[in-house]
């Protein structure tokens, strides 16, 4: 009997990971991975992984009805965000880009200078996101910046998501210069109001239509039904479906996903983040319901030294419960041996301590902050960012968590800490583990079978204590 299945592919920065899903029984029938071969032919890595997959599927008649892919290969989707005021439209553009699954290499504010244009030219970028001005507000900045980009000779796709009143002028400037660009809704149409989804969608479309091929992945594209989105966008999509639910499936409610990788730790929160306690004033630019932050200095291998610098020896030793271990040396070793797989008990213990430090810091940087103000009106609480105190689920993914013996203890390092009560981290979350490493695959599956993707995630995300 033939098993109709989907083949879900993640062309990761290090590994090409395959997930085979039986769409009748809604089961993961096999997973496999091999090193991503982006230098010459991406399909070599794929073929190696596929061979392993076939071996696991021996004896089963599997018919892959569809193949969907996501990718963070070739450095991932690299972008810059350009806006007007740093805390306002520049920040809004940054949030749009992060949520689209991009690596935001830089954020620019106010009028671009020639030096900044040079910087943009010299960074190996994929897409530029251009914003600035609320609708009906400041026009000069976005028009100036469009002119600078048009005159610079930069031939990169641009997503224009700024003041709608400036759009006609920007349109003419960019089309006269023969640039490839798409115009969409303002990322900050009114003061402090965020509208990132239209920009995210345009970024994703350009990713599919232009970037994938530019990165030498045309063969992969031809083999599949398309490389639909950057990997982090797939993870965010899976998290959103799991949180909000779908047409037939109930969601889990507010949740946070922590993805600890070799180079970065990503945090995705799916929650409105409104104040959970009375009498709190919410301030600042709105945060997106689906919020992604990326900590480029918190990683297990490539960024191990940066992690040590950010966390300090003291913090890592606290998690090790051992002041004799040489933290710096261990971190430097990992940074120089990025393929290291921990084997001894000491190596495992050190990895776990690093993971705890990464989780603690990444959550601290992601969540909202409560400020206590002593004013003539009495004590007032002011909140900037999301209140995630009441978030019910903390979901972990990434190699160190998936292979750990005690993933809950790593995740709990990201929970609310009484000694630092101003950081609105989840107080009492249930910890779930993406043991089968399926989040990005489920994000892909959700494109076609959202209910099934949620059901599978509910089955395969394991509760850990």
């Amino acid at each position, binding site marked *: 009997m033939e098993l109709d299945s989907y083949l879900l592919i993640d062309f990761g920065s290090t590994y090409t990971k395959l997930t085979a899903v039986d769409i009748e029984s809604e089961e993961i029938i096999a997973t496999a991975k091999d090193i991503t071969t982006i230098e010459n032919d991406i399909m070599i890595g794929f073929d190696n992984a596929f061979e392993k997959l076939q071996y696991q599927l021996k004896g089963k008649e599997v018919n892959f009805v569809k193949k969907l892919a996501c990718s963070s290969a070739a450095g991932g989707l690299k972008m810059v965000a350009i806006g*007007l*005021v740093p*805390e*306002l*439209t520049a920040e809004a553009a940054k949030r749009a880009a992060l949520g689209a699954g991009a690596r935001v290499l830089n954020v620019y504010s106010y009028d671009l200078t020639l030096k900044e244009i040079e910087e943009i030219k010299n960074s190996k970028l994929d897409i530029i996101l251009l914003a600035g*001005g*609320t609708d*009906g*507000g*400041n*026009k000069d900045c976005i028009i100036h910046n469009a002119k600078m980009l048009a005159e610079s000779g930069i031939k990169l796709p641009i997503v224009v998501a700024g003041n709608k009143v400036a759009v006609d002028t920007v349109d003419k400037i960019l089309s006269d210069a023969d640039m490839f660009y798409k115009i969409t809704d303002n990322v*900050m149409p*009114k*003061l*402090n109001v965020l509208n990132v989804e239209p920009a995210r969608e345009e970024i994703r479309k350009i990713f599919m239509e232009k970037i994938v091929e530019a990165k030498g992945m045309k063969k992969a594209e031809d083999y599949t039904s398309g490389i639909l989105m950057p990997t982090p966008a797939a993870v965010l999509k899976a998290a959103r479906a799991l949180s909000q639910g779908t047409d037939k499936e109930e969601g889990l409610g507010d949740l946070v996903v922590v993805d600890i990788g070799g180079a970065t730790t990503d945090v995705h929160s799916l929650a409105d983040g409104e104040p959970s306690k009375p009498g709190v*004033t919410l*301030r600042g630019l709105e945060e997106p319901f689906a919020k992604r932050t990326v900590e480029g200095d918190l990683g297990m291998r490539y960024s191990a030294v940066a992690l040590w610098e950010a966390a300090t020896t003291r913090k890592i030793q606290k998690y090790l419960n051992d002041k004799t271990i040489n933290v710096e040396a261990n971190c430097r070793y990992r940074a120089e041996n990025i393929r290291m797989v921990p084997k001894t008990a000491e190596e495992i213990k050190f990895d776990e301590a690093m993971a705890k430090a990464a989780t603690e810091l990444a959550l601290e940087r992601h969540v909202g902050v409560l400020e206590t*103000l*002593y*004013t*003539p*009106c009495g004590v*007032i609480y*002011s909140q900037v960012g999301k209140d995630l105190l009441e978030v019910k689920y903390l979901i972990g993914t990434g190699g160190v968590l998936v292979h750990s013996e005690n993933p809950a203890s790593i995740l709990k390092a990201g929970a609310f800490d009484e000694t630092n009560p101003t950081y609105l981290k989840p107080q009492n979350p249930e910890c779930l583990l993406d043991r089968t490493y399926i989040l990005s695959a489920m994000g892909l599956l959700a494109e076609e079978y959202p209910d099934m993707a949620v059901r599978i995630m509910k089955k395969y995300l394991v509760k850990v204590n």
Partner: protein
Amino acid sequence: MKTLVIGVIGSDCHAVGNKILDHAFTQAGFNVVNIGVLSPQEDFINAAIETSADAIIVSSLYGHGEIDCRGLREKCDEAGLKGILMYVGGNLVVGKQNWEEVHARFKEMGFDKVYAPGTSPEITIADLKVDLKVED
């Protein structure tokens, strides 16, 4: 339509007056960008820049407005908002002080209009229409 940035400055959380002004100015035909309470000077300026505002209207109710407002005109100059219309009102000082002196101090800080406690929004609206050359 002319754009106004309104808000309550400093560590001041009095919200009711702010809502009343929002409503009154909107009814009078202005595009109101309300940054709310507890607003530092930077929030007024950032909002004015992004929205290309024509005027900044600062409210202060808790009596410590002088310290909070000091330097705002200079910051506006620095931020490319040279000459932007700036009004201030509310309960600008604590305790009983000579209004003429208070008025003079705030005018010296760079405010175009300084309003005494109890000023009705209608007066401010009339002044705005004159200063911003709005035809009725």
